[in-house]
């Protein structure tokens, strides 16, 4: 919120914003018709997906200050729940998405209730443990496909079956919708009671308690909101890639990337996750192509860079790109 501005300046700003929003809307909506090749669409889909996941993580980690290092567990719950329901009982993936959401809410309570009473470190450790245990359990559970994973059955394409084979465009729009849903939800949150309380909890939990805030309850709420959107992303991924296994939906690397996108962009800000995704995802796709020759080692190289970036960002610029941008703008004035 800037310090008071004069009215004509404010009106001009609104006009510029309106123009920007309109241009962005035209670009985003028309993109699949201009770039019809699969790769550019795939790139945008990945950007939307990770921006959505990072934004969901942001609700808990950025706004409420509770750091989760195992968020992939919710992604995996979403992916596996809808897929198993589809394979075993032919239940629509949309219903499966709902089931995944409900299951992740249950996990929220089981993990959050005991660990949120204490400092953030306890919670962070618990999230790592939960993430890894989930991966281990699924990898050893034949019902869930074990380490081999599950193939989503190929069905006639259409919105009802949540599968599209001839073009990626519907996936593009669905992922865009998911991203917008999380972002709109976060924007509403920012000006709601929960939003204020989240930020108070992040800033100083004891002072928050002295103002009557039931911090335990609100931390659970933040985790629940975050888990729900992450699980929805998981179901989307399953229906998009049509194959899931513990290494693709439950690994630590996924949790790391989600964190990195949020941290790189700027935690606790509305546009941080988008910024982080827009910068990181094309970079990671690029290095993947470039390092494809290195095979398995190439994957490790990604993580080397990500790990280094996380350390550097947290040491030098914890407010991320958004923070950097704000500092530049202030220095400009």
């Amino acid at each position: 919120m800037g310090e008071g501005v004069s009215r004509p300046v404010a009106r001009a700003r609104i006009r510029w914003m309106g123009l920007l929003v309109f241009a962005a809307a035209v670009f985003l909506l028309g993109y699949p018709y201009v770039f019809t090749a699969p790769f550019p669409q795939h790139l945008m889909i990945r950007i939307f997906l990770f921006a959505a996941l990072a934004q969901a993580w942001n609700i808990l980690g950025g706004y409420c200050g509770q750091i989760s290092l195992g968020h992939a567990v919710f992604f995996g719950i979403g992916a596996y729940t809808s897929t198993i329901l589809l394979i075993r009982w032919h239940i629509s993936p949309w219903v499966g998405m709902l089931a995944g959401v409900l299951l992740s809410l249950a996990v929220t309570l089981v993990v959050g209730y005991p660990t949120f009473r204490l400092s953030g470190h306890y919670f962070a450790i618990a999230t790592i443990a939960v993430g890894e245990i989930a991966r281990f359990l699924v990898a050893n559970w034949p019902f869930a496909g074990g380490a081999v994973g599950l193939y989503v059955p190929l069905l006639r394409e259409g919105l009802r079956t949540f599968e599209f084979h001839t073009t990626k465009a519907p996936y593009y729009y669905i992922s865009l919708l998911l991203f917008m849903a999380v972002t709109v939800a976060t924007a509403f949150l920012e000006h709601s009671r929960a939003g204020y309380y989240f930020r108070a909890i992040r800033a100083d939990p004891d002072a928050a308690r002295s103002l009557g805030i039931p911090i335990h309850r609100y931390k659970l709420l933040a985790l629940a909101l975050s888990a729900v959107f992450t699980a929805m992303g998981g179901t989307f991924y399953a229906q998009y890639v049509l194959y899931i296994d513990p290494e693709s939906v439950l690994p630590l690397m996924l949790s790391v990337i989600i964190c990195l996108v949020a941290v790189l962009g700027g935690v606790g800000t509305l546009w941080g996750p988008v910024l982080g995704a827009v910068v990181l995802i094309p970079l990671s796709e690029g290095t993947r192509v470039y390092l494809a020759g290195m095979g398995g080692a190439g994957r490790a190289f990604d993580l080397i860079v990500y790990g280094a970036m996380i350390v550097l960002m947290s040491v030098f610029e914890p407010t991320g790109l958004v923070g950097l941008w704000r500092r530049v703008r202030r220095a400009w004035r």
Partner: protein
Amino acid sequence: MAMSVLLRLDQVSKRFGGLVANDRVCLEVHEGEILGLIGPNGAGKTTLFNCISGFYPPDGGRIFFRAQDITGRSPEEIARIGIARTFQIVRIFKDLTVLDNTVVGALLRARTVGEARERALRVLEFTGLKDKMDRLAAHLTIADKKRLELSRALATHPTLLLLDEVMAGLNPQEIREAVDLVRAIRASGVTVFVVEHVMEAIMTVCDRIAVLDYGRKIAEGAPASIATNEDVIKAYLGVGYRAGG
């Protein structure tokens, strides 16, 4: 004029390992008064506040708010009941603006964010921070930070306000302003319980003063009688202040 008892401490004790921080303290805060609590460093004043506000459960004794037993309740419940506090080391929400800080407090009694915002604006007007409402709390001077913490506590519409060394680190002009503000708060209907080290301030603003030393209450009464009380003087080892100069 009979004043009803708002807060009653009955033999409140608190121990940390072998150290007795509060030793069977009995105290009453009357509705509408400004009660002061003084004592040398380590006397247990902040510990007492922490017991009242729910951050420490006392090891002995009971605490009553009006007729209700509030011993050992959580800080959230204490705030809801109508007791607000500030902290010895200021604990404002650094990344939030002055207004947002106060809104968080106001949200306790307000039903909507809009209502909270209006209440917050009124409080900031009362405490004199309204013109700084969009500034980041981290960028305030120490005096304004304390004023903000106070505003935030006031926004919860408390019946009793606990102020923990709110004048520490202020220059004489700021102390005078703080004293005026405390008086205005009492005039608006809030009972004030103040812990202080700044003697001139506490002597002028309080109706009554209680004195703690090594966890025990050693004196209680009007400021003039406290200033001349031998036990009090001994406890402070000759901090020479006498009412009337």
